[in-house]
């Protein structure tokens, strides 16, 4: 009986050769295989390349803002004004009062000796070009700040809920549900309208309002990912080998669960900037004349019936806003493809 059912024994030393036997390029040798894989993955599809070029361009604009548009006066974020006239001026019209210093690139690129309003002016003679260049810095500040804080809040609440479970989970998730029933822009508008008289007009009221009503998505997604990872065999295997609970959570569960949240976060930057612009457009947040795309857009409010003539107030900041959001969306997609461990080895 035993002879018939016993398994034929083979030589157990003969194993397949490693799958990683392949030619190694010089770049890979310099960067190491893991970094090389990420870099290569990020620059593989045309969409991701476009996304990175867009974001990179915005970063350069933000970093070199003082060179591109030399600041006028003490506060560089204050858009310089050419007088106080009500009617917007078209792109290319000459700059008369309050003329900024001419930057190095100006003459070679335009062939002119005098500043003109490159992209026109808005109501109150605010220069649109300055608003866009310095508004890039505002966009990065608001986007990154809100996303980092909301992700932190979401991850803490979501992982506590998933890890402890029971009534804690129930309670936290009901809080999430309640917050989710509130209309986002409406609530952010109300809260920042309440905060503005308390703190004065600045970036903070809309940022705090957006954080307060923007963390629930991250909490939900990290919770569900932790719940699904928590019961995997390798977590059990870690417990069997005597690993502490905290280490199990941070070393074994988190790295497997965090990627969907990070992808969502990179997509979220675009959304935040968009919502911030919406709040600005509605007149909430920074003082009038602060360099911010939403603010520039809001200057078009009174001219909205004659946009055939004053199109430049809407079109230029609109294009910039669209490209910024699109850039982050494309980068977010590319990051998902590369960083998600489940996508590894599939390329």
């Amino acid at each position: 009986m035993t002879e018939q059912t016993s398994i034929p024994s083979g030589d157990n030393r003969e194993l397949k050769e490693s799958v990683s036997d392949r030619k190694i390029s010089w770049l890979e040798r310099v960067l190491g295989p893991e970094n090389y894989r990420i870099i290569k993955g990020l620059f593989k599809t045309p969409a991701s390349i476009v996304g990175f070029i867009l974001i990179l361009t915005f970063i350069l604009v933000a970093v070199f803002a003082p060179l591109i548009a030399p600041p006028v006066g003490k506060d560089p974020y204050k858009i310089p004004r050419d007088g106080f006239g009500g009617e917007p001026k078209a792109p290319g019209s000459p700059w008369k009062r309050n003329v900024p210093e001419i930057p190095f690139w100006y003459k070679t690129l335009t062939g002119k000796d005098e500043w003109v309003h490159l992209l026109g002016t808005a109501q109150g003679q605010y220069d649109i070009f300055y608003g866009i260049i310095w508004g890039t810095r505002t966009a990065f500040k608001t986007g990154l700040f809100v996303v980092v804080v909301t992700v932190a809040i979401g991850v803490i609440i979501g992982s506590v809920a998933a890890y402890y479970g029971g009534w804690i989970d129930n309670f936290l998730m009901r809080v999430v549900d309640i917050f989710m029933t509130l209309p986002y822009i409406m609530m952010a508008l109300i809260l920042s309208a309440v905060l503005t008289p308390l703190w004065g007009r600045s970036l903070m009221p809309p940022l705090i309002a957006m954080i307060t009503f923007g963390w629930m998505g991250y909490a939900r997604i990290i919770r569900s990912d932790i719940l699904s990872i928590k019961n995997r065999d390798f977590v059990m295997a870690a417990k069997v080998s005597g690993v502490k609970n905290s280490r199990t959570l941070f070393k074994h569960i988190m790295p497997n669960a965090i990627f969907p949240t990070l992808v969502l976060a990179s997509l979220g930057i675009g959304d935040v900037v968009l919502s911030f612009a919406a709040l600005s457009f509605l007149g909430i947040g920074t003082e009038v004349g602060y360099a911010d795309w939403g603010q520039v857009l809001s200057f078009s409010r009174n001219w909205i019936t004659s946009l055939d003539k004053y199109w430049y107030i809407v079109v230029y900041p609109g294009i910039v806003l669209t490209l910024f959001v699109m850039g982050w969306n494309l980068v977010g997609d590319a990051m998902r493809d590369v960083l998600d461990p489940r996508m590894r080895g599939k390329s």
Partner: protein
Amino acid sequence: MPHDLLNVQNLETRFKTPEGTVHAVNGVSFKLNEGETLGVVGESGCGKSVTMLSLLKLIPQPPGEIVAGKALFKGDDLIAMSPEEMRHVRGGQIAMVFQDPMTSLNPVMTIGKQMEEPLKLHLGFTPAQARTRSIELLEQVGIPRAGERLKDYPHQYSGGMRQRVMIAMALACAPQILIADEPTTALDVTIQAQIVDLVIRLREELGMAIVWITHDLGVVASIAQRVAVMYGGFIIEEAPVKELFRNPRHPYTIGLIGSLPQIEQEGRKRLFSIDGMPPMLYQKPRSCPFSPRCHWVKERCRVENPLLEDIGNEHRVACWVDTSTGSERA
């Protein structure tokens, strides 16, 4: 005279589910001597894995609950231990290998990092020592170019290699007991044989005791010294491996062995199969749990649950019927 390394007494584990309480393990007792290999066989859902997970207190609580019993490991009761004490036993003194090597390794950690973890944890190794030891261990389980392969991620290993890694990790801290929960079930037959050979070789080198859970009687025959057959949350028969195969006494064991295909068999005969399904265990069985499927069933089987009884030759069986004669036992 080897003394008991592990002595499990009357272990009972239940799960509370929305449909009712599931009585998964109903008073299991067994002993494991130093250096001995015990095979635990039985069909799916008979309580094999739950018994072993209960010993290590790895049953999710709730819904699971260990309601009774002791598990004396070198005289200390595992069931009564605090989580902190338990953490030192797990991995350090009792290690476990799971069924599916494809999901038992963390996909985002390199093999090296995962192997070094228990070494640093239980033996206080420095990173350099842990690395050296990991390479030794990988070589010991037959992974070529171990030094390079430490940097690889699990998806770069084949199934058989991953199971080797799991075994290497389990053996990293030289445990006294290795619990192997169907370690060959997810592998194809040639790899199964390699893993069984590997464990036999490592047992000779390291001398640990093994509990090998499986539903493959062939594997049990080649590796175990003693076999316990489980059914419905009970051990229903226990004997040295040769005795069990030569002289199975419980109707369920007879059925199991009879359902194996035999190479020498002439003609085309249908394989024997045991009719029916294993019991659902929503109540603790008061009668013999196998009685609804049993050919020898007697009136007494339906009202009273038999206990394990010694019938000589270190052979214990829980059945009211003496299957060698077909008559009721006295």
